[in-house]
């Protein structure tokens, strides 16, 4: 099978993820969309690794997974604590950093 | 390897600053004495440098130290002093003990303030002063452009806190407004000087790029660059040289300050306490004029000649503009600040007149202006702290109630207006002669400055010291012992250097000759040859001998 199809799939997944980040307000959903984008990238990396015949892309995919896992840990904790204090998980409500 | 004397002169106040800052809050008095002790030791070390310095030596820099620092970029920790630097280091280290003594009570926490174990303004004040001293001293010593730049800029940090953090007690009125104005002045000082410094940074990097391009390996060493130029190995293109010169000069002109880059000075001097004001004008600003002599002229001789006409005109404007604005001031400290602008105009005039009288005079001027402004400003500070007001109109008849204070103030003022017999006369006259011998018209117009100086000094003295005694002034005490200890040596020094400036000129002359030879300028010859006159005194003989030697 032509590996380019995997790239199309990766692009499609990334677009879905990006659209989700931009459109959805629920922090959990935004978070899941970010994961979707990361995994789309992972797919593209693995595909390139296959196309070029070396292991670089696969190694980077592992890195991405580690970073994503770390991010989930921190991110979910933040979201939970925001939800506890404000009883909402909407990202638009958390805009206190602007002056 | 010889003893690193120059490093020690700078390191002692630096260590003193750390030690002073580390003292606990309750040991305020100990901090003061420690700072005073450190500054006196530094002065003693500077005297050692001055006495062991050999003005007749062939090499332009002495006590040199050089260690690799950032070898990738050719940065070396290179120090060395010429006569000009020795004179200015001596001035700096001399003034700091007086500044500390004069500011003895300026940073005491207010009595009503709640005791707080971590609130240590006094320690901070004196530590910052010592830190400034260390950086100024090392700026005078650095022969590596990068090292110089580093400390030239780093000086801004302690100065910022000194200006913004400590001010005159406003006597309970409008403390908040005073704090706001003070903080504005400090920010203005910082941004102004930072802007100049960043432009200089670009030029410093540019200089490195040029040397890296032409010499194989880049260098920041002043001596190497000067030697490479002289040997023809380094040739900076005309356009590049001018741009680099302007980059350096801009930073120094801000610091000096030269019209129209002067507007930070009146605010900074007016809002800070008078010891800090002295620190600004008598010590820190001298780095600017000193660097013009050492870096601008020696690194970029051709561009210096190219820019001379414009700089002379700006300096002339500074002289007259500063003096005229001083006449119109209503605030004692701002008046002295504008007077300083006028005096810095004279110094820059002397430097760029490119004659041995002009540059020698400018160097003496830096020293003498430091002493005379310190005397005038510190006495003004004593006066202000007594009455709690900086406005001239709030005073009158002080002479009657505090004659010694008035007398010292008058002597400081007379030094400021360059009365013969006091040190500033020697330098001002040399600058004027040096300027006149190359640029007669500018010399004549600059002479107007001496009339204007008399005007602002005497108007200030008349309005504050003479006339009927104002009721608020009537109870003022005369100078205390501590204050006399500050002022009397400064006045004695003004008198001594006014009558016998030879120790200073001997120190400075060879360095000035070296600078002039780098710039490749010679003094204009007198138009009429004078020969020996029978019975005309030793003058004629001396002149003739010199001429004969020159002819050979």
């Amino acid at each position, binding site marked *: 099978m032509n590996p380019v199809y995997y790239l199309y799939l990766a692009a499609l997944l990334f677009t879905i993820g990006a659209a989700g980040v*931009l459109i959805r307000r629920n922090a959990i959903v935004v978070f899941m969309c970010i994961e979707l984008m990361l995994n789309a990238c992972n797919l593209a990396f693995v595909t390139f690794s296959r196309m070029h015949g070396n292991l670089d892309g696969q190694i980077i995919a592992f890195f991405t997974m580690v970073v994503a896992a770390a991010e989930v840990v921190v991110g979910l904790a933040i979201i939970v604590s925001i939800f506890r204090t404000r009883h909402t998980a909407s*990202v*638009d409500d*958390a*805009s*206190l*950093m*602007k002056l | 390897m010889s003893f690193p004397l120059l490093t020690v002169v700078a390191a002692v106040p630096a260590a003193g600053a750390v030690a002073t800052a580390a003292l606990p809050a309750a040991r305020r008095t100990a901090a003061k004495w420690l700072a005073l002790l450190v500054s006196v030791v530094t002065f003693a070390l500077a005297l050692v440098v001055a006495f062991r310095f050999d003005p007749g030596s062939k090499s332009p820099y002495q006590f040199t130290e050089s260690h690799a620092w950032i070898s990738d970029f050719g940065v070396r920790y290179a120090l060395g002093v010429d006569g000009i630097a020795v004179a200015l280091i001596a001035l700096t280290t001399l003034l700091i003990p007086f500044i500390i003594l004069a500011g003895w009570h300026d940073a005491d926490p207010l009595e009503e303030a709640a005791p707080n174990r971590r609130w240590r303004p006094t320690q901070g004040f004196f530590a910052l002063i010592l830190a400034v001293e260390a950086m100024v001293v090392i700026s005078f010593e650095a022969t590596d452009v990068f090292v110089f730049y580093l400390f030239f800029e780093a000086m801004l940090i302690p100065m910022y806190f000194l200006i913004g953090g400590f001010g005159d007690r406003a006597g309970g009125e409008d403390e908040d407004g005073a704090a706001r104005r003070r903080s504005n002045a400090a920010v203005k000082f910082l*941004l102004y000087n930072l802007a100049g410094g960043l432009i200089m940074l670009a030029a410093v990097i540019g200089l490195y790029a040029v040397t890296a391009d032409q010499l194989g390996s880049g260098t920041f060493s002043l001596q190497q660059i000067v030697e490479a130029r002289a040997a023809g190995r380094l040739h900076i293109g005309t356009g590049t040289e001018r741009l680099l010169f302007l980059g350096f000069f801009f930073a120094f002109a801000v610091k000096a300050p030269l*019209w129209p880059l002067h507007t930070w000075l009146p605010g900074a001097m007016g809002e800070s306490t008078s010891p800090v004001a002295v620190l600004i004008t008598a010590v820190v600003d001298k780095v600017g004029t000193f660097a013009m002599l050492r870096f601008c002229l020696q690194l970029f001789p051709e561009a210096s000649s190219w820019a001379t006409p414009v700089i002379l005109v700006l300096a002339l404007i500074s002289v007259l503009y500063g003096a*005229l*604005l001083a006449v119109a001031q209503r605030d004692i400290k701002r008046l002295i600040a504008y007077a300083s602008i006028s005096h810095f105009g004279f110094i820059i005039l002397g430097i760029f007149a490119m004659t041995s*009288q002009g540059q*020698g005079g400018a160097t003496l001027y830096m020293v003498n202006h430091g002493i005379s402004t310190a005397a005038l400003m510190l006495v003004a500070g004593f006066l202000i702290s007594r009455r709690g007001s900086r406005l001239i109109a709030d005073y009158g*008849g002080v*002479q*009657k109630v505090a004659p010694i204070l008035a007398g010292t103030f008058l002597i400081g003022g*007379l030094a400021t207006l360059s009365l*013969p*017999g006091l040190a500033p006369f*020697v330098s001002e*006259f*040399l600058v004027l*002669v040096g300027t*006149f011998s190359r640029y*007669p018209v500018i*010399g*004549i117009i600059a*002479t107007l400055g*001496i*009339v204007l100086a*008399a005007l602002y000094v*005497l*108007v200030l003295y*008349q309005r504050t010291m*003479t*006339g*009927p*005694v104002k009721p608020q002034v009537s109870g003022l005490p005369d100078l205390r012992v501590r204050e006399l200890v500050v002022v009397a040596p400064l006045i004695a020094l003004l008198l001594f250097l006014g*009558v016998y*400036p*030879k120790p200073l000129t001997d120190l400075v*002359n060879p360095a000035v*000759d070296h600078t002039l030879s780098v710039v490749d300028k010679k*003094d*204009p010859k*007198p*138009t*009429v*040859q*004078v*020969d020996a*006159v029978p*019975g*005309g*005194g*030793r*003058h*004629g003989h001396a002149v003739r001998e*010199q001429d004969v030697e020159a002819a050979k």
Partner: protein
Amino acid sequence: MENLIALLVAAPLVGAALLLCGGKRLDRTGHLIGTLFSVASFALGVVLFADMLGKGAGDRALHQQLFTWIPVGGFRADIAFQLDQLSMTFVLLITGVGSLIHIYSIGYMEHDERRRRFFGYLNLFLAAMLLLVLADNYLLLYAGWEGVGLASYLLIGFWQHKPSAATAAKKAFLVNRVGDMGLSIAIMLMFTTFGTFAFGPVFAATDRAGQGTLTALGLLLLLGACGKSAQVPLQSWLGDAMEGPTPVSALIHAATMVTAGVYLITRSGAIFNAAPTAQLAVVVVGAVTLLFGAIVGCAKDDIKKALAGSTMSQIGYMILAAGLGPIGYAFAIMHLVTHGFFKAGLFLGAGSVMHGMNDEVDMRRYGGLRKYMPVTFITFGLGYLAIIGFPGLSGFFSKDKIIEAAFARGGTEGWILGGAALLGAAITAFYMTRVMLMTFFGEKRWDPAEVHPHESPKVMTLPMIVLAFGSVFAGGLFSINEAFVKWLEPVTSFAHGHSPVSATTVTAATMVVLVIGVGIAWGMYGRKPVPALAPRGSLLTRAARRDLLQDDFNHVVFVRGGQELTGTLVQLDRSVVDGAVNGTAAAMGGLSGLLRQLQTGFVRSYAVQMLGGAAVLVAATLLMRGV
């Protein structure tokens, strides 16, 4: 002997330092210490004078080199003294009259709590003035020159609690500084022309310098002389300077300091002789001032200001003579010395009158005082006769010679100058007679209930008597065998003028104008009673009372103009120069305010920005690769 010269300066300098730094401990003896140092300097001067008389005319000049003051490159100024006949004359005049006035001041300042300081300033003045006349180069002369300016400032403003005194002191210093500017530029010009500014080498080389340079030098030196000697156009300070204590007016503003300009021109004779244009300027200044001062002197009712006008006028005579070149130098100095005696005597007399009249200075409130203060009357009267040129007294000999020399200039100029000098003599006779009559003759115009005129103590009258002797005999003594001219000739050189009118005619004409002047004055003030309130007077009188509107001119042009200028500059500094800086800061602030709008705080808008940024990066990369 030459090693003693520095002691002449050092003695009063030590006195000044002692008195000014000594503190209250010396309050009770300060006046004696001051007088002692002054007299010591005089005694030393006499010793040196005696030594000088013992030598031949050619080798009388002494020279003492102390040390090099300022050595920078080719610029070399020495602390070195030169004592020749000209300096010697001044030394004796300064220390002699100075000592007498010290003694007088002991009595005059008896009740002043700051008497010690007063004597300190007087000693300081003596030191500076001696430095001025003993210097062997122009820069050291300049140091003395400014030094006497400082002493004059301190002494005019001695009663600083009076705003008028403080203002007068400031004015004197400032006007002098304008003159000093001329002198300092002259020194610079000398340095660039000759490479030195020591007297000997400069004078020897004048013949090789260009005419333009010499003229410029002459005019600059004249500007300096105008400032110090209160000549038109820098004369405005002298009248106000009378705010100082009267001994100060006698010593500084009559006998010594104000004559420094004459010294400068005489000393620089070699330069002026070679610059005829500058000499013309000198004689014009002298002639104008001698009339100006005389006219002002006629209108003043304040006895000291009338005498100040007279001083100005008499110095005008000296400057005129000095401008005439070798035919006049010696007479300028001779008149300077005799004037030193009689004008100091007149001022001390005025001080004595004020002392007895509760410090009243308005002559319209005097009258008939001759019975109450006979010694003052007699000494003042002798001074009066000397100044108007009464035959046989000092002023007659010296002034007559100047008028003669003025005619001897020759041509139309000679007639104009001679005429001006004669006219001046007539006006002098008029205003001095007026002072005399208003003060000592006529009816009492004071209230006997309030004022009790009395003779001054001996310590004050003694100096007046000594000075009166000088006023009577000095001129005659100097003229025996032309002794004074011969004494000065080796320094100033001397040429006999060839006057178109004979000496006898000039003397006769002088006598005639003298009689006319005295006669008119007697007609106006002696024959009829003097009104106690000044009449309105003619336009000229009113102008003369206001110093011929010079002050008004200065006020409008310099004071107002200066205030306008500085005010504008302050505005300019704030709005334009600092405005540009603050404007830049404000513009930066505005820009950052705009950029801040982008930071909405919404996560999703940041996400859009990031996405957009990524898209731009990708597009840019593609484009770059495409190219």
